[in-house]
């Protein structure tokens, strides 16, 4: 609930619009009450057979209310949806910034499910927040006050009855609906979790389930969960019926109360029969503002959950302090890493331990080692995705935190497993690295990576849509596009983080022969657990459990017969393909 309230602050900028939309909503319901009230007035007056002129006011009234109600409702819908759309747009943007701050932090497990898809689904859920949760109660309160005042003027004794009926009724419906969904909701979420886990097992472990012959067991498991879910749904069906019951019973009971008192008042000549007729229809009509509270209660818990998940990510705060102000004239791309150690906040184990190395233009440095040895952490530190207390990284002789953050990051271009091809055109995917790049520069980058002819052969050349749902590209093409992107960026330092993952040996060879000549003007850090083309490297750093345990050139390391040699040896005993087999 707290998270939902916090999200409501995004509505504050639109308070004027909200005022307008709730006024319109109030006006629409009030016009409905007016329509039925004046209708009752007309026929009740007419029953007493007065001169025609006596009816004229009522006739003007019904005509006015009859037309205005639709207009008010229409405008109210437009304005409330407009607020809603603005609100959602703001949330999307805000959340983009939240994630922009967080990524690529190690503390969020982005691998678990598709977190991003979940986030977008959560944001979509918030669609109901204004229209179904915020707006109806405001309208309900305004209408309740309005009707109570109206009846109070007729006779003050009516006020407590109508107030009771509307307020208690509204609250009752809201809370009954909310508690039903809240209660069964928690159980359902648990069972849905079970479903999801079970399906994941069956789908991802499908072959193992087949070969282990455990289908019957899986089917039994499923039946248990499914039966539980089914009976919960049946329970909630009956509880949901309760809301329906209330939506008929409460107005009925309130009407009865009004009639009970109204009849007495007529008997005592405190009000006339015409008023009694009007009161009856006004009471029936005013519940139009109360009924939507039930559905507000129903969606509340769902919105709360979404809001909580969004806020949870917001609270995992990790801020890089961009306090440097040194503006360099021209970077040469010389990186020096000295005695660099690092552990993630809250963890004791060092991820990196006294790392020393340097990157110099024209030098190829390879960082190799088994998975999990800390290779990627070095990249995150070079790019200042993590801040450390003891600075051990300097750029052109000056520690990197003394520069502005953007300037530091601009010195690097990175190709990694997580480098992303956007669902956009080829040229957009390239120029993202350098928005000011012109067509010639894009073309020459493509030529350098041997992709120009391919690009020209595409249906729409550079404007061909790639990425999700776009033109299919192979792993090798993908890496070349990423490389062209790096070249366009024109940064002095290039970092390759497992660039040949998911490629077969032949494509790997081809890629290397394309890349190698391009690299000669840059400071290059080549990170890999595949020991190929190592004889081209000017220095090899062998990282194991966060420390560099061996360094040198390939020939020397092989002669040394240490850890590097061992890994090299194992690899050479592997046959062919390192990619995923796709047959």
């Amino acid at each position, binding site marked *: 609930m707290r998270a939902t309230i916090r999200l409501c602050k995004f509505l504050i900028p639109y308070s004027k619009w909200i005022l307008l939309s709730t006024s319109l909503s109030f006006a629409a319901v009030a016009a409905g009450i007016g329509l039925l009230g*004046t209708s*009752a007035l007309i*026929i009740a007056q007419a029953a007493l057979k007065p001169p025609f002129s006596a009816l004229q006011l009522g006739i003007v009234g019904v005509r006015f209310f009859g037309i205005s109600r639709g207009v008010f409702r229409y405008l109210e819908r437009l304005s409330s949806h407009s607020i809603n759309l603005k609100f959602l747009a703001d949330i999307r943007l805000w959340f983009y910034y939240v994630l922009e701050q967080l990524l690529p932090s190690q503390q969020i497990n982005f691998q678990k499910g598709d977190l991003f898809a979940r986030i977008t689904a959560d944001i979509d859920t918030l669609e109901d927040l204004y229209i179904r949760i915020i707006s109806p109660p405001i309208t309900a309160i305004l209408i309740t006050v309005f009707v109570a005042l109206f009846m109070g003027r007729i006779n003050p004794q009516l006020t407590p009855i109508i107030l009771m009926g509307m307020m208690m009724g509204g609250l009752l419906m809201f809370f009954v609906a909310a508690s039903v969904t809240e209660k069964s909701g928690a159980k359902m979420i648990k069972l849905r979790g079970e479903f999801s886990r079970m399906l994941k097992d069956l789908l991802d472990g499908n072959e193992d389930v087949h070969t282990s012959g455990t289908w019957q067991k899986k089917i039994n498991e499923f039946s248990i969960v499914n039966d539980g879910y089914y009976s919960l*749904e049946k329970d909630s069906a009956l509880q949901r019926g309760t809301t329906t019951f209330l939506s008929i019973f409460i107005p009925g009971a309130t009407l009865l109360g009004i009639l009970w008192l109204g009849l007495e008042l007529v008997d005592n000549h405190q009000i006339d029969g015409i008023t009694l007729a009007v009161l009856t229809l006004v009471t029936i009509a005013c519940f139009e503002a109360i009924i939507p509270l039930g559905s507000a209660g129903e969606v509340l818990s769902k919105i709360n959950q979404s809001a909580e998940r969004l806020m949870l990510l917001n609270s995992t705060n990790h801020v890089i302090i961009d306090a440097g102000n040194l503006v360099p004239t021209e970077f040469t791309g010389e990186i020096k890493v000295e005695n660099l150690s690092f552990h993630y906040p809250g963890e004791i184990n060092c991820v990196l331990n006294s790392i020393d190395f340097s990157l110099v233009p024209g030098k190829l440095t390879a960082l190799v080692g088994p998975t999990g040895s800390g290779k990627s952490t070095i990249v995150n530190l070079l790019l200042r995705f993590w801040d450390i207390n003891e600075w051990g990284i300097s750029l052109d002789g000056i520690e990197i935190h003394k520069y502005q953050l953007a300037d530091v990051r601009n010195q690097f271009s990175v190709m990694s497993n997580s480098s992303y091809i956007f669902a956009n055109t080829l040229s957009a995917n390239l120029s993202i690295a350098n928005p000011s790049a012109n067509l010639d520069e894009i073309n020459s980058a493509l030529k350098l990576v041997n992709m120009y002819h391919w690009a020209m052969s595409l249906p729409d050349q550079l404007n061909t849509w790639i990425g999700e749902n776009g033109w299919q590209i192979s792993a090798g093409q993908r890496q070349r596009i990423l490389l062209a992107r790096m070249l366009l960026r024109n940064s002095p330092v290039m970092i390759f983080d497992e660039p040949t993952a998911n490629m077969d040996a032949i494509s790997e060879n081809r890629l290397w022969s394309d890349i190698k000549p391009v690299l000669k003007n840059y400071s290059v850090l080549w990170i890999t657990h595949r020991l190929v083309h190592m004889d081209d490297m000017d220095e090899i750093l062998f990282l194991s459990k966060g420390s560099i345990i061996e360094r040198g050139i390939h020939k020397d390391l092989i002669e040394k017969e240490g850890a590097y040699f061992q890994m090299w040896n194992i690899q050479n005993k592997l*046959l062919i393909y390192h990619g995923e087999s796709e047959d």
Partner: protein
Amino acid sequence: MRIWNKQLSGLVKQQKILFYLCIGFGLISAGLFLIQANILSQIVSGSFIDKRTRSELVPLLLSLILVFTLRGFSSYCSDGFAKIMAAQIKNDLRKAFFGKITRINPVRLKNMQSGELITLFLSGIDDLDRYFSEYLPQIIFALSIPVFYLLFVFPRDALSGIILFVTAPLIPVFMVLIGNRAEKLTQDQWDNFSRLGGHYLDTLRGLVTLKVLSQSKHYARTLEKINDEYRLDTLKVLRVTFLSAFVLEIIATISIAIIAVEIGLRLLYGTFSFQTAFVILLIVPEYYSPLRQLSLKFHASNKGVAAFQRLSEFLGIEEWGNVVGASLEGDRDKAENLKDILDNSFVIRFNQVSYQYPERNVPAVSDLSFEFNKGQHVAIVGETASGKTTLVNLFLKFINPGSGEICINGLPIKDINVNQWLSHIAYVSQRPYVFSGTIAMNVAMENGLVDEDRIWKALNRSQLDKWVQSLEHGIFTQVGEDGFRLSTGQSQRLVLARSFFKDAPIMVMDEPTSAVDPETEMFLQNSHRLLAEGKTVLTIAHRLATVYQADIILVMKNGSLIERGSHSNLLAQQGEYFDMVKHYGGVA
């Protein structure tokens, strides 16, 4: 989007009784409303016109209580039955969905996105709820209740009846007129919406890349622009779609106004009774309500209809065989002696086996012929997409040969029940999958009573026993998705323990392709040797050590078997295998 979806409505057939109950109680509720209106008009008119006192009206007031309580109760029943019906249908769909998974060919299933299927199961089926519990009954109500009310009004006042009769059809007519335009706009809007959603999702997924390129701040402005465009487009559409609601509202309110005036005037001049007038006034707003509800519920049910399309696509996938019971082509009698065959000596023969995946235009494997005996170790080598996996899938009966056959001692394996066949095979896939459950369950692959000693023995052989001993709950430690996270090495060991536990006479292995750290590598090689001891083994091999030790090496290329023989034989041939070993292994 159609008003009536035949396929979806067809699902109700099994739940006829619930559906009738829902409709029945809904109609009763509508009837009770007429009674309620009648009583109410008698009360008001009794006091107003006949000057009766409250005490005289008490019986009417009491019956009013009774009627609206009953009406509430029937609506409760109507809604409740509708919900239960929806729950039943969803329950059936879930069962069908799950059953489908058990019956789809694993090869086919592997090509589907598990995330998407899970979402379809969890959200897609729930999205259907509103279609069944709200929209479908409402169609009936919208068609019947107005008629019901009309029959009530006509005898009492023909003129009002005519007004109601004439205006009601106007509503659908106008809705269709506006609806057609709105539908096109809504469709565009949907495309627009999915583009925006897709774009946002795409941006989030690529956020790290944007950040690395220091474009993330800049990109926010693009996002803002797209958001704005989307918002303005949406509003344009809403202006039209809300028009249909507007027309509905206007027709309803104006008829109320007209009827009020028309009745009022006749009351003024004629002999029309106040009570009749009042009752009609009470009924008119309710007369339009079912139609209004229908248009609201139509929009709410759209999502479900869309989900159902994807759902029925999935449920329509061709099935592979009933793995739970007897296989489709399985013959129990012939399989009876399978155990005997496996216990004694046997020979497995691939006889001109070919297979082509339905959606491909070249065969994955063609004309495979080879044989191996009990106790022999077979290594399959070859490039990516050379047909190695297909060969193994054929052997595991995940797919059946398009032509040719695989026999064990002359008995075609297609005549053997899949479950029977697989119960004699231990399979180690390339990517070990750890199920969510306990370690014991992952090893024995069953819950309940397990032979703990046998599990420990299996763990010991895959060198996981020391680590498991150090865990607080030992073999009952939860692992997988929601449990203890295992490292890649540990997962591999756990999955191997599964095979040690199963101890089947035939082993099928798909070796991991990439090198891991020296320690794990050593372990993998050792356990491969241990597992293979005394068994008949078929391996997709990526390690020279495995290949060296194999009795038969099958070299695959483009779906064909191009060389076969032992390591030394093949080297002597100086063919494809020789090149392969020379090129990658550097050993010749």
